[in-house]
């Protein structure tokens, strides 16, 4: 903690302990007894546990604001030499912010799920998993060491797998679950290596011991093959592999759009608001390490930049409403990494915070639409929507708020955080700051465009789904779903007001609060006139995006078809998602299957293994056919054998 006086509380604190363990308790009880005893109301325990957790988190927030930090070890699992593995909690500005965000959203999404998942045969299972997820997420953000971070990291991965494959009878859902799990394994492999490297070179896994020791390795170079590699870069790169997997950045991003096979509340909570931001959280948590190496920062910025741009180009071509929102999540995660890559970690976390609310709202709004259309064969298809404004006014208004927020319209949360990122990128001391700013601006416009594309297609024009719904008309969702929507829409507006930048007369309280932990970004002197200009530019970009979307999807729908025919090559390239899935299929899946079917199956399995197994059986049978001749079953012969044995033994003793 850089020069800030916090009172560090090192004794056990029950309230910190309860925040993650209440959801765990609720989850376990619901999973064990849910099927038999809680069939009708399995949500009681998880929802009340989450409410309690949320209230305790608020209390902890007040504590931290008044200058307290909790850091204590709950339990030592093993101590081997200098390796200590245990469960410990760290509540500082960074984790308390995540804590409040996770518990509040998780609580609201639990409530929403009561309505959304009603009547599902796995009702109790759903609540159990989603509470378990919350537990692991809280363990992740509360940990005070890397191993526990890894535990939470894998735990949320597991819950993500379980929940993407929640409707496991559907092949696409179970495939998507496997895909998410496997791609995350690739990233986590790097992450684990990174943790090993941290321990190997720094000799500890605890944050408060890692940071003072970082200067030791600041100038260390190690040889890999014939290359000299800067050690901080190597460790950062390995750790960042994990972040790429979990936060779905290029090239490990392909699982996130497929993860939309899961129930919508899951998409909102796990694949938009919380789990996928774990990568950003981890990078921010270990920011002193990343800042040691300019190359690592450049890598973070570049990966964020590519993902951000790529996702923003794919999103407008997709027709599945949830996939569009998923690509926008990718894009916004890219934004956060861009902020981290220019050293503005606090701002990145600010965007994470506001994004969690407006993106959850977008997803839940989409879920509300899907719920209304659930009689259709594919309720996610925006081509059967249209004119829903009349049928679902609450969903309409909340979706509008979320869209305005993500488009960066002044006054809404997304504006402040996105704008801060652009400003900090522009004034960054890192040479790639200007590039980040430019791409960020471009993507801001595209984001507005594709978000309003689904907005206009879903809520304006004529309702096109009468046939798909067999003549029914959609209806507004029940109160248990709309009330969380309304509450989150407050978050999507006001969460940004916590960090209004100085240039607009605010105090940037949110950023100052986090900068106590995350450090101040290295900036060139900030010129307020330029800052206003940048803001105006980003507002113009957002408005232009909305304007074009209005033109194409409301005024002249013919343009849509026109463009997709005129630029067919580009359109196909984008529609096929930059051919990433096809590429991976060719490069990884096909060779792996070939290897499995020929080398492993034909050579190893049917030759080596079969012959080993059959051979041992045959050898036994052959030797038995020889020795069975001695086994006559007549006692007298055995007596002779005994005598023979004794004689041989005696001879052996004598001649020895």
């Amino acid at each position, binding site marked *: 903690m850089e020069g800030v006086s916090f009172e560090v509380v090192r004794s056990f604190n029950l309230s910190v302990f309860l925040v993650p363990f209440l959801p765990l308790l609720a989850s376990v009880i619901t999973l064990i007894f849910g099927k038999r005893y809680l069939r009708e109301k399995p949500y009681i325990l998880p929802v009340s546990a989450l409410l309690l957790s949320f209230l305790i988190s608020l209390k902890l927030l007040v504590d931290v604001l008044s200058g307290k930090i909790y850091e204590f070890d709950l339990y030592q699992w093993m101590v081997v030499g200098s390796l200590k593995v245990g469960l410990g909690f760290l509540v500082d500005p960074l984790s308390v912010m995540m804590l409040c965000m996770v518990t509040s959203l998780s609580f609201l999404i639990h409530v929403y799920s009561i309505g959304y998942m009603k009547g599902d045969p796995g009702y109790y299972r759903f609540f159990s998993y989603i509470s378990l997820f919350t537990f692991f997420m809280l363990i992740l953000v509360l940990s005070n060491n890397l191993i526990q971070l890894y535990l939470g990291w894998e735990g949320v991965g597991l819950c993500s797998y379980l929940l993407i494959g929640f409707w496991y009878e559907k092949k696409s859902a179970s495939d998507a679950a496997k895909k998410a799990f496997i791609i995350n394994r690739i990233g986590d492999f790097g992450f684990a290596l990174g943790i090993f490297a941290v321990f190997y070179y720094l000799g500890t896994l605890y944050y408060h011991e890692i940071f003072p020791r970082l200067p030791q390795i600041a100038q260390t170079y190690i040889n890999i093959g014939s290359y000299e590699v800067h050690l901080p870069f190597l460790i950062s790169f390995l750790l960042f592999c994990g972040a790429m997997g979990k936060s779905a950045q290029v090239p490990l991003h392909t699982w996130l759009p497929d993860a939309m096979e899961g129930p919508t509340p899951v998409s909102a909570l796990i694949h938009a608001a919380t789990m996928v931001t774990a990568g950003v959280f981890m990078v921010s948590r270990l920011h002193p390490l990343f800042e040691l190496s300019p190359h690592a920062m450049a890598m973070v910025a570049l990966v964020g930049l590519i993902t951000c741009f790529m996702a923003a180009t794919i999103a407008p071509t997709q027709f599945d409403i949830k996939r569009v929102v998923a690509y926008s999540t990718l894009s916004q995660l890219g934004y956060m990494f861009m902020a981290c890559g220019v050293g503005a970690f606090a701002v990145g976390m600010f965007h994470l915070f506001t994004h969690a609310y407006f993106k959850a709202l977008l997803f839940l709004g989409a879920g509300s639409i899907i719920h209304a259309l659930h009689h259709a064969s594919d309720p996610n298809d925006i081509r059967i929507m249209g004119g829903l404004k009349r049928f679902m006014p609450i969903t309409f208004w909340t979706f509008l708020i979320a869209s305005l927020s993500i488009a960066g319209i002044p006054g809404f949360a997304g504006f402040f955080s996105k704008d801060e990122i652009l400003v900090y990128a522009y004034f960054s001391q890192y040479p790639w700051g200007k590039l980040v700013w430019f791409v960020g601006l471009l993507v801001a416009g595209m984001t507005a465009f594709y978000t309003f594309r689904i907005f206009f297609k879903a809520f304006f024009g004529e309702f096109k789904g009468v046939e798909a719904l067999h003549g029914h008309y959609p209806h507004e969702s029940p109160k248990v779903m709309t009330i969380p929507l309304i509450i989150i829409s407050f978050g999507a507006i006001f969460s940004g007001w916590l960090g209004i930048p100085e240039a607009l007369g605010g105090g940037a309280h949110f950023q100052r609060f986090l900068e106590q932990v995350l450090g101040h970004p290295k900036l060139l002197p900030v010129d307020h006139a330029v800052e206003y200009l940048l803001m105006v530019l980003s507002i113009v970009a957002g408005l232009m995006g909305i304007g074009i979307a209005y033109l194409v999807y409301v005024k002249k729908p013919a343009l849509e078809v026109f463009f997709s025919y005129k630029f067919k090559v580009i359109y196909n390239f984008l529609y096929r998602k930059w051919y990433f899935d096809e590429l991976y299929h060719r490069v990884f899946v096909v060779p792996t299957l070939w290897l499995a079917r020929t080398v492993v199956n034909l050579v190893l399995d049917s030759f080596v293994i079969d012959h080993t197994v059959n051979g041992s059986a045959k050898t036994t049978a052959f030797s038995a056919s020889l*020795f*069975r*001749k*001695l*086994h*006559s*079953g*007549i*006692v*007298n012969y055995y*007596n*002779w054998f005994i*005598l023979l044995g004794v004689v041989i033994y005696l001879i052996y003793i004598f001649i020895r």
Partner: protein
Amino acid sequence: MIPFEYYVLLTLLLFCIGLIGVLFRRNLIILLVSFEIMMNALMILFASISHYTKDVQGYIIVFFLIALAAAEAGVGLTLVVLLYRKLRKVYADEINYFRG
């Protein structure tokens, strides 16, 4: 005083008689008797060693062997009777129940 070698010769003779009985006779009862003869040879050997070395250990072993021999004979005879009841056979080479 009888020399020690005579005792050894006696026991060797008895042991060989028993051994030959075990190896060549087929009747199970005779087999048991032969075992007893071998055992007796051992007992005499122990007793004589004890007598000549003035050590009481050999006598103690002899007492244990007597008890053991009684028990063994009891169990052995029981088994033979049961075997006879079951199979109506008493010759060892006719009983090849466990032929491999």
